[in-house]
């Protein structure tokens, strides 16, 4: 698909966790992801990352 947003399906779960935690803390710049990541706990981020990694 033609999109500026990177595909995340099947990505390494560590990368997703790091990205979400970075968005949440503000260390990783974003437009909207910082606002969204603040709504998720570490356990939820981990569950999201594991689920995504299992998708292909």
């Amino acid at each position: 698909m033609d999109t500026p947003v990177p595909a995340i399906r099947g990505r390494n779960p560590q990368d997703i966790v790091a990205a979400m935690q970075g968005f949440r803390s503000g260390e990783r710049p974003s437009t909207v992801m910082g606002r969204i990541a603040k709504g998720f706990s570490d356990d939820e981020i981990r569950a999201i990352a594991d689920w995504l990694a299992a998708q292909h």
Partner: protein
Amino acid sequence: MQTTRRAFLGSSIAAALFPAPALAQGRARVVVVGGGFAGATCARELQRAEPRFAVTLIEAGPTYTACPFSNSVIAGLRPITAQRFAYDALRGEGITVQQDQAKAVDPLRRLVTLGDGSTVGYERLVLAPGIDFRWGALPGYDEAAAQAMPHAWKAGDQTLLLRDQLDAMPDGGRVVISAPANPFRCPPGPYERASLIAYYLKTKKPRSKLIVLDAKDNFSKQRLFQAAWQQLYPGLLEWVSLSNGGKVTSVDPSTRTLVTDFASYKADVANVIPQQKAGHVAEIAGAADQTGWCPIDPVTFESRLQPGIHVVGDAAIAGAMPKSAFAANAQAKVCAAAVAALLRDEPPSPPKLINTCYSLVAPDYGISIAGVYHPVGGQLADVEGAGGVSPLDAPPDFRAHEANYAAAWFRTITAETFG
């Protein structure tokens, strides 16, 4: 399709966690009424969750015309064909797509009667009827009046009517938009529409004026919109709040006049966005309350009035969640996971939902509002500390990124729902 970060974030933790054991009771029947973002998503997620489910989607139209980005059609920036989606992909996944209207719902016998007189039985029914208008709530504004003064709040012919009226208007004309009181579909929508019509006027008919008459004093992304209007459309776009006499109390379609308590505004083009309620089928199923909308359980989206019937999307009373395509898609995923769990006699998991709404104030100037939601005390509430709007002081490249992301979001969600 690829799953983007944004698409994934619309999915629920519940969907992430449920296992897929064999069904105890064989081929359970689930009927979904309404093939928009909520209904089409729900049908798809149900069929994917359990291939043995017999999923029927009842939708009156052969195609769906999407509302997000339809303001760009009105402003002449986009063809209506870019808004239309068919159901071929859903059929290809084993969903029975029945092109008809649901004329009656019998919650006790669990039967839906279609326009052709046939009936469809279900173990679980999902209603995703979107909105209907409260014709007559605004004196003078009925279905016939919508030909002279289009609402364009369901995308399709009305979108084209408003576009063509703007196109035919001479330079120097006066456009008036009437924005409704809460709640209504797409809270930032009237203001995105005002912005893009202002953009059209500025670039094509610069001597024209646009007035927004509002039944509210506050609206979604207000400071961002107003800052952008001051910067981009000074002297062209005027917003009249409720306190300043903006509430329209009657209209006269024969003269395209909008009347408030203090003045009457004769328009060359008038866009009247009427008050709304849940789509008709919610009413006939007994799932709508005295507000006209549908109270639901925030974990399962099961109706609080009709057991066995679930309501998702704009028709539902979803607490802090706005009536948006993003929210409809997210709710549909949660509902599908809950319905699948209930049909397996498993407990549904409490969900966490996301919404993001982009608005364009100009083609290269996007703004957004986001929220994260969870059930608290029987309602969907904001997760504290999360969500919010784009920064007020962002540089132009930030606005351009958000405009690009808006377009990418539309491609992603429509591919996920219909593609």
